[in-house]
């Protein structure tokens, strides 16, 4: 296995939007994501997980350290890193198919090559029959499926997901988690998944990076050694490895929250 994403000594400060005070968001982050791996990042709110993702996406310039994908240093946004955002970021003025095919359109892939590819991803995320619909005609879960398909269809080297299921209801959420697991098996994509849900982090991650409260640092890496094929919510609720990993992550995160409260 080779490392897809390498982050070394990444440090970042930014001025607070309202107070103007300097916020120390990330402190000397070192991490590696292997090819085909799904890693989850979990931590208390404001720990810099979203800052990290924005830096990886190229949407935020970073101060110190090195970040590279496939050995190429990150300078600005690029199609090698696909992002699924927390809010509904698919374009309201494009239909499901035109949203999913947007990345290929940008790359000037001709229509006859684009169409079968787009249809394959429509089917993969279960949006068959909704191809011509506009986002406002879809449910919240469907919108996020469309967003995942859009990112996958552009075929990035790594897919970055920023709390993508945070805005959907609990039932839809566990369905989407199982579907993402299925998609990860089907596409063998390298995925970094940011969440504040401990359940989600333990269910999806091959490894889970637990962040400390501000300044964001990687506190512990928890390995969750369960084959993807076995991961579904019916079995996981009785799986000792899963339950142990979840309990450990929860404990680590709660320590951080407690620290913040005591301060």
């Amino acid at each position, binding site marked *: 296995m080779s490392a897809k994403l390498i982050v070394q000594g990444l440090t970042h400060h930014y001025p607070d939007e309202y107070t103007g005070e300097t916020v120390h968001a990330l402190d000397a982050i070192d991490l590696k994501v292997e090819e085909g791996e799904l890693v989850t990042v979990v931590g208390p709110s404001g720990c810099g997980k979203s800052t990290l993702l924005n830096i990886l996406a*190229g949407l935020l310039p970073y101060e110190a350290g090195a970040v590279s994908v496939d050995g190429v240093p990150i300078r600005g946004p690029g199609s090698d890193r*696909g*992002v699924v*955002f927390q809010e509904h*970021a698919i374009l309201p*003025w494009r239909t499901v198919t035109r949203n999913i095919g947007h990345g290929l359109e940008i790359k000037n892939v001709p229509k006859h090559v684009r169409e079968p590819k787009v249809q394959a991803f429509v089917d993969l995320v279960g949006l068959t029959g909704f191809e011509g619909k506009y986002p406002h005609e879809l449910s919240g879960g469907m919108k996020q499926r469309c967003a995942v398909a859009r990112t996958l269809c552009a075929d990035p080297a790594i897919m970055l997901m920023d709390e993508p299921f945070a805005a959907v209801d609990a039932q839809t959420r566990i369905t989407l988690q199982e579907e993402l697991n299925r998609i990860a098996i089907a596409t063998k994509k390298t995925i970094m998944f940011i969440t504040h849900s401990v359940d989600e982090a333990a269910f999806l991650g091959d490894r889970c990076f637990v962040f400390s409260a501000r300044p964001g640092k990687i506190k512990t890496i928890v390995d969750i050694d369960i084959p993807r094929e076995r991961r579904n919510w019916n079995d996981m609720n009785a799986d000792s490895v899963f339950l142990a990993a979840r309990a450990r992550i929860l404990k680590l995160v709660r320590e951080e929250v407690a620290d913040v409260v005591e301060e």
Partner: protein
Amino acid sequence: MGAGAEMSIQSTGGPSVHSSDAANFFQRAAIAVQRRIGRQRIRAFLLGSIPFVAILSIWFLNDIFVWRQTYEIPSMKAVVKSFFHLQRNCPGIIGLLTMDRACGMTNHIFDSISRMLLAAVIGLPVGIGLGVLAGMNRTISKLVEPIAIFFNSISGIAWIPLAIVWFGIGWMTTLFIILNTVVWLMFFNAMLGVRSIAKVYEQSVATMGGSRWNIITDVYLPGAMPSIMTGLRMSMGFGWRALIAAEMIGGDSGLGFMIFSAAAEFRIELVFLGVILISLIWMATDRFLFVPLERWTVERWGLVWKPS
């Protein structure tokens, strides 16, 4: 369809077995019309017609009772006649389209509309282009906004004396007046539209490898459509008003010119005709251009809510 119509007559408690064939026919026709056009639209049309019918009724009654003299309020007949009077020497449809000198009425209409079209073709892209640039770039907005506020405060009509000195009477003057109205209104609306787009749309296109140009065409322009539609209605509406005013003073043809010269000759029925035509042309533009455009874009995309 036929069978369905009959079924619905029965289910809605329609005509009894005793009703005549004629009544049956009318009821059927009414149901067919409702099916074809839709109840809501018929209702909206009827409600909107009430004020017009009221005004027309009063006008019609004035023809009979003559509360006001015909030099104040002309008869309906005189107004209709005045349209054909100005067209009386027009050599048919060819002369109408080639804007033969004899086709007085339609020439005025065509002149006004083509000035408006020319102003739209020049003014709208300039206004939208500047607005989008200012909406996406702070430096440009700081450069352009103050001067836009300055010019936007001047009503189109206030330019007329200067425009006449600069361009004389005629086309250039009227065009200049409309452009002054159209460009700045469009600019402010397009700028506001771009600024109100959620940042995440732009970011999502950027992370798919999209260029600045991709972001302009795929995010800024469609995303700003609700504001651009408002700008379009406002700038064209105010532009049309400014045009009529400009033609009155600085024009040598067009509906505004027609009204003004008719008033000078005390031909009140021509003034009435001009005013009615100005409104009818605007209503038709709104109904057959702006409303479909809105349906095709912002309503289809779910960016605005249709009133129910």
